[in-house]
């Protein structure tokens, strides 16, 4: 490659990329600075990049709210239990489907693929969850999404790609299929477990649909449902209006809402840079099959 002055293409491309980066990051910078500013600056529309009149008041109020705490606690519980159980059930099942001596392997794989193409839909699924007595239980957060067919296929493709000699060596040592999976296959598949585990964890963390449909008890709400009630459905507005209506209520609510959004997003914003490469690996493992 030639070095020296950048050509026109490089200049235009770099400008495009810088624009892209700012549209991705600026919303978060804006929300952060509003949520850290005192309201006399917010009300005058003076805050765009840096907090003015730095204050932690809004965060203090957000953290004083029990709902955020309950939401966090529940979400963390659902993510841990949901991810671990999903990984166990999915990997065991996919392993069985990857073995040629598994009985009914073809039809079972077809059934799994078919469920990607067609499903009972919202109402019949709701009725099943309800008739199993799962409404308003932790089970409703874990069981209906326990297995994703896509993940089964990724796991299966990976297990099928392991060399056959591995299994032969296991057979010589006299281990059965389960022992072979536990002692030889699973330790070799750490990268797939990590990638699928991360995707599952993010999916559960971000899920709004499942708790919105199946959880009506506030003490079991995950974070996303509280966030929606507080910010989108306007619970904070109503509470502020009920308490007292002054001419700066709007901006107070605004700062409070931004602080709430930031609190709800922070774990992902902080963890994301460290986990990013595993996610990309996960997509590529999945698309090899695709």
């Amino acid at each position, binding site marked *: 490659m030639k070095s020296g002055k950048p050509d026109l293409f490089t200049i235009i491309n770099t400008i495009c990329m810088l624009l892209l980066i700012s549209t991705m990051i600026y919303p978060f910078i804006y929300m952060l600075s509003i949520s850290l500013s005192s309201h006399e600056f917010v009300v005058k529309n003076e805050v765009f990049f840096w907090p003015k009149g730095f204050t932690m008041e809004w965060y203090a109020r957000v953290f004083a709210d029990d709902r955020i705490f309950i939401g966090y606690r529940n979400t963390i519980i659902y993510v841990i239990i949901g991810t671990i159980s999903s990984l166990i059930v999915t990997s065991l099942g996919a392993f069985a489907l990857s073995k040629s001596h598994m009985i009914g392997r073809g039809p079972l794989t077809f059934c799994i693929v078919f469920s990607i193409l067609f499903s009972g839909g919202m109402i019949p699924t709701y009725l099943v969850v309800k008739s199993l007595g799962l409404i308003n239980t932790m089970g409703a957060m874990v069981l209906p999404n326990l297995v994703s067919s896509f993940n089964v296929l990724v796991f299966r493709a990976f297990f099928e790609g392991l060399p056959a000699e591995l299994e032969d060596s296991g057979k010589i040592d006299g281990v059965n299929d389960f022992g072979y999976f536990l002692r030889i296959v699973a330790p070799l598949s750490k990268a797939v477990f990590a990638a699928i585990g991360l995707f599952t964890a993010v999916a559960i963390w971000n899920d709004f649909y499942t708790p919105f449909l199946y959880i009506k008890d506030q003490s079991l709400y995950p974070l996303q449902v509280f966030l929606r009630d507080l910010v989108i459905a306007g619970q904070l507005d109503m509470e502020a209006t009920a308490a007292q209506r002054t001419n700066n209520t709007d901006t107070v609510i605004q700062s409070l809402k931004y602080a709430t959004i930031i609190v709800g997003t922070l774990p992902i914003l902080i963890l994301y840079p460290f986990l990013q490469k595993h996610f990309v690996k996960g*997509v590529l493992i999945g698309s090899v099959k695709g």
Partner: protein
Amino acid sequence: MDKPYARSPLSPKTNYWRRVIASKYLIFMSLPMLIYYLLFQYLPMFGIMIAFKNYNVRKGVWASDWVGFKYFDLFFSTPDFLILLKNTFLLGFYSIVWGFPAPLLLALLINEIRSSVFKRFVQTVSYLPHFISNVIVVSMLTMFLSPSGGLVNSIIGLLGFEPIYFLSLPEAFRTIYISSGIWQGIGWGTIIYLAALTTVDPHLYESADIDGAGRWKKMWHISIPSITPIIILLLILNIGGLLSTGFEKVFLLYNPLTYETADIISTYVYRTGLVNGNFSYASAIGVFNGVTNLLLLLAANYLSKKYKQVSLW
């Protein structure tokens, strides 16, 4: 050598049981997953029969009376049907028209970045919105577009115009939904294209250099043709999902003021079934949507098979 095991003169039935016993550990291992599919995938499919029944909560799914295609006829004869179909179609269609080329274009541009540090930084930053939940994205939209002090309206205010309540305008809904969707997905969508672009033979670029081709020419004549099979495959997949726009983001973003453009089949099913309690009618609408999705997917797979013998499954 002995006779091969498979040729042993056993009846097929004994042979079958032998295979069951041989895979007993595997059966045991797959049992939790199979129970999951039975309960949460196939039982609901079975429950679709309530679309053909007059579902009564007291009688339950089994004992409710059959009504045949009554609810389907009802749905097709309401004026809502055409509006919902149009809204669902247009939202999916515009999502493809605007949302499909965006990551492709970005991938081509990222691929041209020479500094590997800057390249990695652009990638990392552009993937980020993919991990932000729909609730957060819609919260941000609600705040930024708010007529009282939202970011967009304060800019409009600075320019001397009246604030606009964007989220109450039916004509703005699709634009808001799709442009925020591009923000969420553009970076993530580049991953597959970028992976495909790394497999392009560097000799092609070198010989183009010798021929004096500029970077636009190389992009147009080498990069794009090299990844055309992937582009077409992804486009077909997208078309297969044309009518399956998810419930979550539309539900969070719409409100009664924007129903005329925003209400799609899945949100209508939710309101009909779970809010108003017409389980049978809502199921019938859901079945209609499920069947159209299935047909679209099968058509998409047929197309992709025809094109390059690549089957999606």
